[in-house]
């Protein structure tokens, strides 16, 4: 019993100190954000490696998710004689949920894990230390541009994902299953609200971008400086990001769609 309490206390303290370190880290990164503009070239490189290079996986996944939605939505709706409502079903699911959430999960796997590994490696090989000794602040030189790149890329990627998904649903619904193309889009416009659905989805993806990038960079910095430590941190990034995204999604959905 005492052992259990001690264990509980120890893990509680562990989590608390982790949260503390992560918050201090976030604070310092945010304070260094002026470097994003001053060193815009570094920021460009990071947007390229975080955003542009995630584009392919996002477009392909978006297309397939949209096509599956079109197919499954049609099968369900046709039972009610409401196949015309397909556009609304596809668009709402994408814009509200699947766009931001799936993009965030893919982003965590593709860009987040790479960020963690990169920074973990820089720490392990003393590159961060060397920068400090050369009087270069790693927060401004390394973390701030990466953080901004993730924060900026996520909503853009999510929007691309949703847009491509809508087209995927169109290809299957209209092209293959014969839903009228006019009603596909008119139904879509009838049920999808700009502020309530599209803007809320964008807000979600902004929050996800913030959290996933934060987790990824912090995990890299907090990794134990060994190769095992890096691989553990990389896994941690994906797991923690996925949990954070899904948990936050629930909270945000509750707050925004009442």
């Amino acid at each position: 019993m005492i052992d259990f309490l001690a264990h509980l206390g120890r893990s509680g303290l562990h989590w608390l100190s982790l949260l503390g370190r992560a918050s201090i880290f976030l604070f310092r990164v945010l304070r260094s954000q002026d470097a994003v503009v001053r060193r815009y070239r570094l920021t460009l490189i990071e947007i390229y490696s975080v955003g542009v290079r995630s584009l392919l996986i996002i477009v392909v996944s978006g297309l397939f998710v949209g096509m599956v939605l079109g197919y499954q939505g049609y099968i369900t709706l046709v039972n009610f004689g409401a196949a015309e409502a397909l556009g609304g079903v596809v668009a709402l699911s994408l814009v509200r949920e699947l766009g931001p959430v799936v993009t965030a999960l893919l982003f965590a796997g593709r860009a987040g894990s790479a960020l963690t590994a990169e920074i973990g490696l820089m720490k392990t090989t003393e590159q961060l230390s060397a920068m400090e000794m050369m009087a270069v602040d790693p927060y401004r030189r390394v973390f701030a541009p990466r953080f901004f790149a993730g924060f900026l890329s996520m909503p853009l990627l999510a929007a691309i994902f949703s847009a491509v998904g809508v087209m995927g649903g169109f290809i299957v619904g209209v092209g293959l299953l014969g839903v009228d193309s006019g009603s596909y889009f008119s139904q879509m416009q009838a049920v999808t609200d700009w502020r309530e659905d599209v803007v809320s989805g964008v807000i979600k993806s902004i929050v996800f971008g913030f959290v996933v990038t934060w987790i990824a960079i912090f995990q890299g910095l907090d990794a134990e400086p060994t190769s095992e430590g890096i691989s553990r941190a990389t896994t941690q990034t994906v797991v923690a990001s996925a949990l954070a995204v899904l948990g936050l999604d629930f909270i945000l959905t509750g707050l925004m769609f009442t």
Partner: protein
Amino acid sequence: MKLRYLEVSVGLFVLLGIAALFYLAIQVSNIVEYRDGDTYEVTAYFDHIGGLKARAPVTVSGVRIGRVSDIAYDPERFQARVTLAIRSGQDHLPADTQASIFTAGLLGEQYIGLEPGGDFEVLADGDEILFTQSALVLENMIGRVLTNFSSD
């Protein structure tokens, strides 16, 4: 050279993202409706609004001329107060226009249909539509049919 490639590809990426947002706004969502421009508001009281939601369409002869901007319960009249925002261009509705709540299709969303009367005066901002017809409630209808049957 290398910087140029970076700049161009990042620029394209950002453009693509913004284009996707625009696509979502214009093709997928109803942002067009937010561009109704100037509107004037009239109110209508219903005993029962069924499943009517804010931003539901307001139509005349099936043509959309505005939307429901607000729904509230009026504790003094024991009725639902529905505020309709109608495009300023549509300023020729007679004062004795009737407002009814209809359902689009069997499972579709509910909307408000206006049927113009014959009055020479027209509805203006802040006016009230006096003639209203509430939403059909399925249980009530079935009940009425059953009483009709039993009285026969």
